[in-house]
């Protein structure tokens, strides 16, 4: 498993953990407090440092194939994120109509869910492309 695959797996684990924690908190402590689950996403920042340290020891860790896969995975990730973003925005618009008010809770949910969708799609696409 190359370093990019490990990074993708780590991102998937963090995103799924945040989602699971969100659902648990939502069911137990309520909507407002459940947003705390998204703080788990901050772990993604740590992954960069861990893998940079790991990369220094291993020598060549990224080449043209890895960059090509990263590029393709990013395109897939952003495409799926954009579908989610447009879908969520339109659904909100049609639910509230022109004079409606969008809850701050909904706005926070869209931002963090969008982030999760982006990284999940990006990471899964990268893992699939490495297997091809």
């Amino acid at each position, binding site marked *: 498993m190359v370093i990019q695959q490990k990074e993708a797996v780590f991102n998937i684990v963090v995103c799924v953990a945040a989602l699971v924690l969100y659902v648990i908190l939502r069911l137990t402590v309520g909507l407002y407090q459940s947003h705390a689950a998204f703080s788990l996403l901050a772990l993604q920042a740590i992954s960069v440092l861990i893998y940079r340290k790991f990369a220094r020891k291993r020598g060549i860790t990224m*080449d043209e194939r890895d960059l090509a896969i990263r590029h393709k995975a990013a395109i897939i990730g952003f495409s799926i994120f954009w579908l989610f973003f447009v879908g969520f925005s339109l659904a909100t618009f049609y639910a509230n109509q022109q004079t409606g008010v969008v809850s701050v809770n909904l706005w926070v949910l869209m931002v963090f869910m969008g982030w999760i969708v982006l990284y999940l799609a990006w990471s899964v696409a990268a893992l699939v492309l490495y297997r091809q």
Partner: protein
Amino acid sequence: MTKSQLTNNIRRLRFNHNEMIQEELAKKVGVTRQTIIALEASKYVPSLLLAMKIARVFGVAVEDVFQIVEQ
């Protein structure tokens, strides 16, 4: 329209060069071993630069390493 596929003799050339291991070839051309594995399985089409580097390691022309197969 015919579909083209790039095949290669990297595995054979490695064995002809003192059974060079994938790791050694990867290090010489500056890529990861996984990329050499993908190349040998014809699952990845290399850049011109990488193709020329591989050919230079074996001391042959690029055409002796890579061939286009029309399907």
